[in-house]
C-alpha cells in the first residue's frame, strides 16, 4: 500500500478530497481505486458551472475493464475540471493523488467534510473490504 497523503479526506467509495487554501475542494480517486480499475482509458468530466451534490455521481472513469461513477464528496459548484485527462486518462493510474485530480468544487456546506474519512480510517476501510 502506497503512502496516503495526510491532508486528504476520503469516501468509502474511494474518492479523495483535499481542501485548498482558498476553500475549494479538489477531488480525485484513490490509489487503491485506480489499482482496482486497472488501465484507465476514458474520463467523463463534469462541466464547469455544474452543481455537484455530495454522494452523487459527478464524473465517470472508465478502464479497459469497467466504468465507474466518481461521487462528489461535497456539494457545490464545479469550478474547475482536469481537461488534461481527456487525452491522458492514464495520468490517474500514474499519479492518483497529484496530476490525476478530476474536478474542483466550491463547497457550500463545510459540515459535509466531517462525514469523510481521514487517511487512517480509509486505510482500515480498504483492509476490511479485502477480507
Amino acid at each position, binding site marked *: 500500500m502506497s503512502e496516503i497523503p495526510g491532508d486528504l479526506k476520503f469516501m468509502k467509495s474511494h474518492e479523495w478530497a483535499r481542501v485548498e487554501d482558498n476553500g475549494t475542494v479538489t477531488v480525485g480517486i484513490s490509489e487503491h481505486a485506480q489499482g482496482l480499475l*486497472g488501465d484507465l*482509458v*476514458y474520463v*467523463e468530466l463534469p462541466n464547469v458551472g455544474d452543481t455537484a451534490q455530495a454522494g452523487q455521481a459527478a464524473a465517470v472513469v*472508465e478502464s*479497459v*475493464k469497467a*466504468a465507474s461513477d466518481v461521487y462528489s464528496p461535497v456539494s457545490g459548484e464545479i469550478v474547475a475540471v482536469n481537461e488534461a485527462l481527456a487525452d491522458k486518462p492514464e495520468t490517474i493510474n500514474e499519479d492518483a493523488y497529484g496530476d490525476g485530480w478530476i474536478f474542483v468544487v466550491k463547497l457550500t456546506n463545510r459540515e459535509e467534510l466531517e462525514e469523510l474519512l481521514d487517511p487512517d480510517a480509509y486505510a482500515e476501510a480498504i483492509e476490511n473490504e479485502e477480507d
Partner: protein
Amino acid sequence: MSQKTILNDSHRALGAKMVDFGGWDMPLSYGSQIEEHHAVRRDAGMFDVSHMTVVDLAGARTREFLRHLLANNVDKLKAPGKALYSCMLDETGGVIDDLIVYFLEEAFFRVVVNAATRDKDLAWIRSQAAAFDVAVTERPELAMIAVQGPNARARVATLLSPEVAAKALKIGKFVAFEGDGLFIARTGYTGEDGFEIIVPEGEAVALWQRLVDAGVAPAGLGARDTLRLEAGMNLYGQDMDESVTPWEAALAWTVSLDEGRAFIGREALEQQRAAGVPREMIGLVMDEKGVLRHGQKVLTEAGDGEILSGTFSPTLGKAIAFARVPAGAGSSLRVDIRGREVPVRIARIPFVRDGKPFDAA
C-alpha cells in the same frame, strides 16, 4: 471454491491480480493489461489456458460421429494434425459451444472446448457418441499454455530439441503435432501467429518458467479479451449461446452445408435461412471518446440491438464492439451510453489484422 490450474502459484508469484472465470481462479493481469496486449501484438506473450477442456475421441467411427456432431465438416481435415474451428449445435440450431477439433489418426480426434461449458459439453458429446461407439475421454491431467505474437514461435523453438524445433517452425497454420512430450498446435485466440501447447501437468510449471526466461511476457484474461475482440473472434456466452444460431453470430463461415450431411441443427439452420435470418452480428467502432460495453443498447433504423462484447481497443485507441442488431439495421447507428446517444460506425471484422488496423481506423 473455484478451481485452480497447475500454474496458479506461478501466477501469484508473478503478482497477478486473480479473478473468477467460469469457476476457475485465473490471472486477470500481472500489471498493465494494455502493456500485456501490446506485448502479444508486437513481440510474444503467453496465457495459461489450462482451464480449457481437452477431450479425446477414439473409435473407428469417430470421423462419422464428428460429421454428425459439428456444423463444420471434419472432412476438410485430410492430413493428420490438421485442425478445424466449429460450432456444436443443438437441434434448434442454437450454439452449445464453439471448439477446435484436431484430426490425429483416423480413429482418434481431439477437441478443445470452453471451460465454463465443460459439464454440458461433455454430457452432450457423450450422449451423441454412444450411437457411434466412440469413446469420450476428458484429459484433465493436461495443462495448456498459449504462446502468441509475431516472435512467439521463434521463442518457443529455442526451448525445443533441434528436430522438434525445425518441425514446429515448418508446420502450417491450424496444424498440430506431437514432439518432446508436447502437443504443439499453431492455433490461438489473439489474431497473432503462435502456438497453443498442451503439456502434461507435471511439466507445465517448468515450461512456463522456461518461457518466462526466454522473454515471453505473461498475459492475463484482460489482454486475452481485448486481443480476441480486435481479432474478430467470438466469446462463447457473450457473443453467442443456445439462443443464437451461427447465422446470427457472424459464424456462417464455420457452417458447412455440404450435400447429404445431416449434422445436428442443420434442418433448423436451413429453415431459418429460408425464412430470413432476423438478426445479425456486426462489428462497431466508436470514433468519439468512451468505451463500448456489454449490454449497452444499439439504436438502429430497424429497432434496438445490443452490444455483446465491447471494449477499448489498445491497437486502435478507440472503443470497438460486436453488436447483435435486427436485420436491415442500416448504417446510421447510435449507442446509448449513460443516456447519451453516441454515433458508431459499422466496421469490417477483424478490427486488427497482422498487428495493424484492418478497416476500422
